[in-house]
């Protein structure tokens, strides 16, 4: 469990400057010069000074490793606040390869500068798995391995947010047989504070929610045993599913496009993993609450659970060992039964699936 730590420096800019031997007069002179350089109207120096002094935006270094940039694309879909507000007004995103203007060694310099100036105070965001095999050579940026960069950047951060299933659990490249030895941030650096926001991709509402929590309460949200915030991963999909009543009533989709499918019946028989998945998918949904997989007629594949690539596949196979749906069985009983049965079954199933694949190879 991560501790609560203050993300924002308590020292004011003026106190800081004073400590460095810069007087208020010098500072105003600097601001006037800056305003002139930027061709701002006269009198703007005061405003510039205010903007700088008020600038408490947490610095952010966003790292990309073995990933598909789907989580950065998810960030682009943010609406509360919008991505423009996030990158301009709420955060100072000093390093993010997909959006940053600088390239090459200038980009590396930008990262190094933030590391130095905001050591222990910036937020690291990681997207992608980290390959550890063979000295980490499977992912290099600027000639340095992902292991090397992650260790430096996450190790010196106030906290690390692992966005998406890849950085939270290792992701698709960590599925059996994991050819590059891909691991999650927490596996690489077990002792640092990490918030995992799994999902494929991360739901941007959970990312902005985590940032909002940091900015509003000044600490990290409470996490579950997989380091997932309770506000987003505290409940099972099945318990919040809009189709739950059809499950309880024994009404299931049998073939694609059949009457039940068009009427929004339960997708359990088509392979839905909602009963074994913790995620706020049914409530916040996606793209400003427009829809979610079950809402569009496709089973949940359990993308927010550890190792889901192995443990939840085959995706169109039914969850094992789910109690029957006799008329005498009450909905409550089924619900209670599922909680226990699926947790155990899935733990076992993950092992079985991986073992099966391994045996085939051998």
């Amino acid at each position, binding site marked *: 469990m991560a501790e609560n730590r203050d993300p924002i420096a308590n020292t004011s800019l003026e106190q800081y400057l004073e400590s460095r031997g810069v007087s208020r007069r010098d500072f105003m002179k600097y601001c006037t010069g*800056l*305003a002139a350089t*930027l061709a701002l109207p006269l009198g703007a120096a005061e405003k510039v000074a205010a903007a*700088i002094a008020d600038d408490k*935006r947490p*610095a952010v270094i966003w790292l*990309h490793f073995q990933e*598909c*940039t*789907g989580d950065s*694309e*998810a960030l682009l879909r943010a*609406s509360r606040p919008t991505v*423009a507000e996030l*990158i301009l007004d709420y955060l*100072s995103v*000093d390093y*993010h*390869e*997909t*959006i*940053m203007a*600088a*390239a*090459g060694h*200038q*980009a590396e310099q930008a990262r190094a500068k933030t590391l130095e100036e905001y050591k222990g105070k910036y937020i690291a965001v990681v997207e992608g*798995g980290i*390959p550890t095999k*063979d000295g*980490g*050579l499977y*992912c*290099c940026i600027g*000639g*340095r391995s992902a292991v*090397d960069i992650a260790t430096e950047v996450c190790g010196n951060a106030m906290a690390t947010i692992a966005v998406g299933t890849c950085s939270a659990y290792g992701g*698709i*490249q960590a599925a*059996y*047989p*994991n*050819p*590059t030895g891909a691991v999650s941030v927490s596996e690489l650096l077990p002792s640092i504070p990490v918030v995992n926001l799994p999902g494929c991709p991360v739901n941007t509402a959970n990312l902005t929610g985590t940032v909002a929590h940091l900015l509003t309460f000044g600490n990290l949200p409470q996490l579950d045993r997989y380091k997932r915030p309770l506000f987003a991963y505290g409940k099972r999909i099945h318990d919040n599913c809009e189709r739950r009543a059809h499950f309880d009533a024994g009404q299931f989709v049998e073939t*694609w*496009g059949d009457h039940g499918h*068009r009427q*929004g019946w339960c997708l359990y028989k088509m392979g839905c993993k909602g009963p074994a998945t913790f995620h706020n998918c049914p409530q916040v949904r*996606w*793209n*400003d609450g427009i*829809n*979610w*997989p079950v809402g*569009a*007629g496709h089973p949940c*594949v359990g993308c927010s659970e550890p190792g889901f*690539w192995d443990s939840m596949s085959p995706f*169109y*196979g039914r969850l094992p060992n789910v109690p029957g749906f006799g008329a005498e069985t009450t909905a409550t009983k089924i619900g209670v039964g599922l909680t226990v049965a699926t947790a155990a079954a899935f733990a076992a199933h993950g092992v079985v699936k991986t073992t099966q694949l391994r045996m085939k190879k051998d």
Partner: protein
Amino acid sequence: MAKKIVVDPITRIEGHLRIEAKVEDGVITDAWSIGTMWRGIEKILHGRDPREAWYWTQRFCGVCTTVHSLASVRAVEDAVGMQVPLNAELIRNLIMGIQNVQDHVIHFYHLHALDWVDIVSALKADPGATAKLAQSISDWPKSSKDYFTAVQKRVAAFVGTKRLGPFANAYWGHPAYKLPPEANLMAVAHYLEALDWQREVIKVQAVLGAKNPHPQTFLTGGMSVPVDPNAQNALNADKLMMIREWLVQAQEFVEKVYIPDLLAVASFYLDWAKYGAGVQSYLTFGDFPTAEGQRREDYWLKPGLVRKGEFPAAAAPQADKIAEYVTHSWYRYSGGDNKGLRPWEGETEPNYTGPKPPYPDQYVSDVDAKYSWVKAPRYDDTPFEVGPLARMVVGYAQGHKEIKETVDFVLQTLKVPASALFSTLGRTAARGIECLIMARKNVEWLDILAANMGKGDLRIADNDRWDPSAWPAEAEGVGFHEAPRGTLSHWIRIKNGEIANYQAVVPSTWNASPRDPQGQRGPYEEALIGTPVADPEQPVEILRTIHSFDPCLACAIHVLDARGREITRVKVL
């Protein structure tokens, strides 16, 4: 004096790319395109259910998200003879169509524009003059002096913090930036507007595909989103209307903002029609069916290829002429590295011979050795460029109505000949041209879908061949898709209902490829030859040409070969 320069990371792309270039007297004389990441998904699909391959391969890329899912389901459908209902074909067109439009706009404003637009210079603009400029090129309503004043104030306040975040440490003030401050301010305003726009219009994918990125409604044999005008949980008239609103919003922005901006910016950079031509051979396999069971030749975009010097004759490409080489890629082939392999026979055994990390001050490139995780696909042993430029050149050569009209309009507006297409500027313009015709086409596909639903056709998937027990014991298939970045193909071999082999030949693998055994450079490399570099410390010119391809390296290094061979231990030299 020759000087070798390294740009790593190339930012504002998807994935991890390193460019090394030799510069002599201010001009690039040689170049190396180096993919620096490998995920090894090759082994992972072996033995899994072919029906879920689309979900796995979709994760190759979250930028051109979902293009792989379409190629994947098509490969399985081809292999086991599934018949895709018209409703599903049209829903796929709409998902891919809006993907293309949104992706091209994001590329222009958020990935490519900063190579041409100097944000800091926008602070010197006169908002009144900016309003006049904007109104002279478009009737887009957000064009008042007050509007641009507000944008400028916002940028000034941001710059005033001295913490430029993603805009820090760039090449601002570089002499290669040619736009007047007013054009820069207008572009910055549209950079911000496009950020809001892209979030809205992609909601088409949320309705049809559950979410974006990574829509989740693909099925082998169809789609999982049911259609029924009289059902609450299916695609009905209300949802079609929602989609229509976003499609119209998409089209309007492309017509009134993107295209006018593209033409305005291009007019200041016409010298870039001289650079970046590259291999000048173009390939497309065609896409977008509008009838059930349609032949590829009858799709909206038709297959074709244009070879160097053969413009405007476009021949039909053949799938069996595609082969991949690893002479300069960090893999080994069992039959020798200089032999090309057809995709179904593909092998992906890593064989890393590059420097051991950290290697920030070492060159990775070597004309005689391996230097990239990207393979070298060749068509008929020739390097080909794929992507919007390839599609527009082929379409132009074929006399495709919408393509020809729009290309001619752009050439006439810029007062340049058709040969100007073969350049960095031409590549950037072709993306805009494609975006425009695609934005218009989307609305037509929606109309066809509505008409078909109105006739009472509610079929959405091929249920007869859903269960693997209905498949032949052994089968192989290929699925093509024209993704935003170019021709994509997935190749599958199925044995007893399981994946026996899976291979993908990806747009950025074509374009970012290293040299082949004949020493022929890949399209990025070839395009950099002759590019001027004013200041080797600030090589914005390299970014211009590389970004004009819209690189997607995560896709490029996800070549699949799921035959289950054990990966041999990598030897680090």
